[in-house]
């Protein structure tokens, strides 16, 4: 696919980054009213709102934000499988946040330093995601090095989501990044945080065994269809309506 969007923005890349942010924002939005403390309600909502803001900018580069969010079929979404994973308990949400925000911070720092079409957006996003990364890191430390129960839960969460992390470093067309180097730095950083949290770096494979591919190719996990059904239902029930 070549660049077809306005001002030669690589559409594939805009969708990949935009869908990551959109889907994770949606998942975090599901926490509203369920967070472990009121202070955490506010924190999770802040992160969700940052991500939704990023998603809107990115999707608008690729087309109409609402058409893209609400009228695409599941197979047309390019987000990582990691971000669509259900919230699970707070440990799962934090592990997902940690894996993704470290990736996002490394990637956006690199994009912001370049002169590609995503540089301005990345420069703004990198400040937001630095905070998301910090939030996830702080909680990883507390859950890992908290009580026996919390360490067990956090370790389980890190293990369970590990197999979705390899996909992050699959090159995305239109994104000028040094993927092997990103991956190495990501592994190093995650290893350091987990170590400080008295957790073990998971050992299993970091990608699925299925040759059909994963999120970047439009192949998703079962829960994603359900998530989209909920997200798109109202919009699709009133074709052409304005909101």
């Amino acid at each position: 696919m070549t660049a077809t969007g306005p001002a030669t923005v690589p559409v594939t890349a805009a969708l990949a980054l935009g869908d990551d942010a959109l889907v994770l924002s949606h998942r975090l939005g599901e926490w509203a009213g369920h967070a472990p403390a009121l202070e955490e309600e506010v924190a999770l909502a802040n992160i969700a709102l940052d991500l939704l803001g990023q998603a809107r900018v990115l999707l608008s580069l690729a087309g109409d934000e609402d058409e893209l969010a609400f009228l695409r079929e599941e197979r047309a979404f390019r987000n990582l499988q990691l971000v669509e994973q259900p919230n699970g308990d707070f440990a799962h949400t934090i592990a997902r946040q940690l894996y993704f925000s470290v990736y996002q911070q490394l990637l956006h720092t690199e994009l912001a330093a370049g002169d590609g079409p995503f540089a301005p957006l990345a420069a703004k996003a990198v400040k937001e995601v630095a905070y998301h990364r910090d939030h996830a890191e702080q909680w990883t430390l507390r859950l890992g090095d908290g009580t026996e129960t919390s360490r067990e839960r956090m370790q389980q969460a890190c293990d369970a989501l590990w197999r979705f992390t390899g996909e992050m470093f699959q090159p995305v067309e239109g994104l000028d990044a040094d993927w092997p180097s990103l991956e190495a730095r990501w592994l190093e950083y995650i290893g350091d945080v987990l170590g400080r949290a008295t957790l073990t770096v998971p050992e299993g494979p970091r990608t699925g065994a299925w040759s059909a591919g994963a999120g970047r190719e439009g192949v998703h996990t079962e829960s994603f269809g359900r998530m989209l059904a909920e997200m798109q239902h109202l919009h699709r029930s009133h074709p052409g309506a304005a909101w």
Partner: protein
Amino acid sequence: MSTTDWPLWEVFVRSRRGLSHTHAGSLHAPDAELALRNARDLYTRRGEGVSIWVVPATAITASSPDEKDPFFEPAADKPYRHPTFYEIPEGVKHL
């Protein structure tokens, strides 16, 4: 109290550079790092601040309302501390 009780912190926010921190409110957090982050999320989410202090509520020593008179009234009868106390001839500038 159960172990899940997080202590109370008082939050002070500098709204912009050049101004001092003022009391914004309070919140609960298990420790200082999270208190600072919670304060950022709660009290500056509309761009209200450029710097934050958090202080354990228990670390504050307050003057007592009962001692209001001995504390604050003696200051009220020292008008010579204020510039308006002094008479300056008309037309004298830069004073």
